[in-house]
């Protein structure tokens, strides 16, 4: 594996391999000293063109627990504001000697573009509406842990509720869950679903009502409802959204204790999560965050440590590069 840009690119074998590897990383994280020397001498650069403190901290922690060196580039402190191109930015950082870029960008596809400009591995930490593969991995790992499903999700019924259309989390989750064999149902008004025939295109069922789906589900995955969606005439009001698609106290009462409840965070309490998740026996939202570190360790190790790599090219002298550029 050279890059982790999408779940599809990972494939079923890669997905199982990373989930198995995550078990090891979770064990490392349980040790008194949760750190291994596996990626000593490797450099991981987080390039975040869109703010996401949670994801960035999770990747940074993962890299450090594997003893990799980390660099962080965030757009606020960059010269991108001064008109430097994405390509120049990546090539300049790459010239400093980077083994992996962890990339977050508001535009779909940027990880693919970047991988054409550097030989370093690319990890997609979220691109536009497209994918957030490590979130899907940690979600799959959390379900596997919660339900003891180590070999796959055959027959598991997972409902993903909310704004699928604009959600990279949903797109990656759908790909990962269906790849593991789960039956996925998307629950949302048509305004919040991607266009096309979703049964054919994504291999999922669709429902525009939550209540019948709740009767018959093993995992309930609530997506974050962005407040600005109202102004785009996608839903009339958050109140109406909550009434139709939120996890209300009434729905929570009817939910079986065995149902795993998930959310990618940050939650809109009172909107999609209209109950205190602490009172839900099946809520695993904190575990999702914890597992995020182990999953990202697995990804970084799989990319940078698991295979034989050719001898690294000598690092370009950055001083000279800058002189030439000037």
């Amino acid at each position: 594996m050279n890059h982790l840009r999408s779940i599809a690119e990972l494939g079923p074998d890669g997905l199982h391999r990373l989930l198995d590897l995550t078990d090891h990383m979770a064990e490392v994280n349980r040790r008194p000293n949760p750190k291994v020397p596996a990626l000593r001498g490797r450099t991981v650069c987080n390039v975040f063109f869109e703010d996401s403190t949670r994801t960035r901290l999770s990747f940074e922690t993962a890299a450090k627990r594997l003893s990799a060196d980390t660099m962080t580039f965030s757009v606020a402190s960059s010269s991108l504001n001064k008109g430097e191109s994405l390509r120049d930015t990546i090539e300049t950082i790459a010239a400093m000697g980077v083994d992996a870029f962890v990339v977050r960008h508001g535009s779909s596809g940027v990880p693919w573009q970047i991988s054409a400009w550097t030989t370093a591995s690319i990890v997609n930490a979220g691109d536009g509406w497209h994918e957030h593969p490590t979130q899907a991995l940690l979600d799959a790992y959390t379900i596997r842990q919660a339900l003891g499903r180590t070999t796959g999700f055959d027959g598991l019924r997972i409902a993903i509720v909310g704004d699928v259309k604009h959600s990279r989390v949903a797109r990656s989750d759908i790909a990962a869950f269906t790849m593991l064999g789960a039956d996925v149902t998307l629950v949302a008004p048509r305004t919040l679903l991607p266009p096309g025939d979703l049964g054919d295109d994504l291999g999922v069922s669709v429902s525009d009502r939550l209540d019948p789906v709740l009767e018959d589900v093993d995992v309930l995955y609530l997506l974050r409802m962005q407040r600005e969606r109202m102004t785009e005439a996608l839903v009339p009001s958050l109140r109406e959204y909550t009434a139709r698609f939120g996890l209300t106290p009434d729905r929570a009462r009817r939910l079986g204790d065995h149902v795993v409840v998930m959310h990618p965070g940050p939650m809109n309490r009172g909107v999609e999560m209209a109950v205190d998740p602490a009172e839900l026996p099946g809520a695993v939202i904190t575990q999702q965050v914890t597992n995020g570190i182990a999953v990202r360790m697995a990804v970084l190790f799989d990319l940078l440590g698991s295979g034989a790599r050719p001898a690294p090219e000598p690092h370009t002298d950055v001083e000279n590069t800058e002189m030439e550029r000037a």
Partner: protein
Amino acid sequence: MTEIVITGGTVLDRTGERRADVVVRDGVVTQVEEDVGEGLGEGAAAGPDATTLDAAGCVVSPGFVDLHVHLREPGREEAETIESGSRGAALGGFTAVVAMPNTDPAQDSVSVVEFVRRQGEAAGLCEVLPSGCITVGRAGEQLAPFAELAGAGVTLFTDDGSGVQDPLLMRRALEYAHGLGITLAQHCEVARLTEGAVMHEGSCCSRLGLPGWPALAEELMVHRDIELVRLTGAPMHFLHLSTAGSVRLIRAAKDDGLPVTAEAAPHHFSLTDEQLGTYSPIFKVNPPLRTAADIAAIRAGLADGTIDAIATDHAPHTPDAKELPLDQAPPGMLGLETALGVALAHLDMPLADVVAALSWKPAAIAKVDDRHGRPIAPGEPANLTVFDPTVEWRVRPARLASRSRNTPYVETPLRGRVRHTVFAGAAVVVDGEARR
């Protein structure tokens, strides 16, 4: 005093096809006869300065006319100039091109239009026909001075780059155009339905997580404007049709006898939305690449004449611009130098029909059929294209005449390539190399 002898080719024009050599003198075709070239060896008709162009295995046709090119000058000369674009046009076999008005400043005044025409004349590689804006600054608010611009020789008016959104304004434009001998051309896109759109709305965009450009946004405006043509009786040309629904609407309008014409771009009958799976902005274009079903409909529309012309929508953008994230990168692809090769590789229709769609049919729409797309006969203006219809080749971006490199055909084998181009009696392209 220039003389050109084109030997060994097959002449193909609107009157048919025949083996003949063609002699050109002082900008005019003087002789079209079999084996005239050999007989001239000792110099009866051909003088000692005659240039002989070998057309063995080639078709000699009237020069091609492109109704739709963006030459970027004035305003974005880093992407293309009228000279570099003209050179690409000549290499692609075009002897006339219609320059779209979305320059900076826009082509909404006589001075800008005259500037574009003069730059074209200075380059001397093909005839550059400036189009005019429908609205001032293409802002969609106030009509551009149609009569003034028509007086400066403008025949085609469009706000291309965007469609005229306001139906009242469009109605007035068509009504006002009446009697001026001009044609309005529409870029059909209901902007409200394509805000932020990056690619065709369908299965592929669902999977790729990209905002979709629904076929409906094009078809709604095609439908609206057909009805406005029915109401006003003014002629209308439909730019770069991309959907099966649009082809159906135009076909029905023509069946009703309405004065409508239409064009399609080579990329809309050769590339599908699946290309966006690479996330390369090279494949971002407006209207977007559509589905295989749409491609089939465009091909059928060209084959049955519903779509009159092949027009490239040649849209140069600098590498920097095409390295932006997909949602920020500007739409557009190069087309001039690959149009014939794409058409012959992807269209299953008689060669004469392909040449018609590249030459005399667009010449009529642009109202330059007094000098382009003419039959190849003595006394006719010498705007000619000589092309090998069977040679397979691949584009090498670095060799393109365009200042930009955004061709989507790097991986695709093309069939058919221009060997020589004669513009106004001068050999501007010889053996695939521009002479100016």
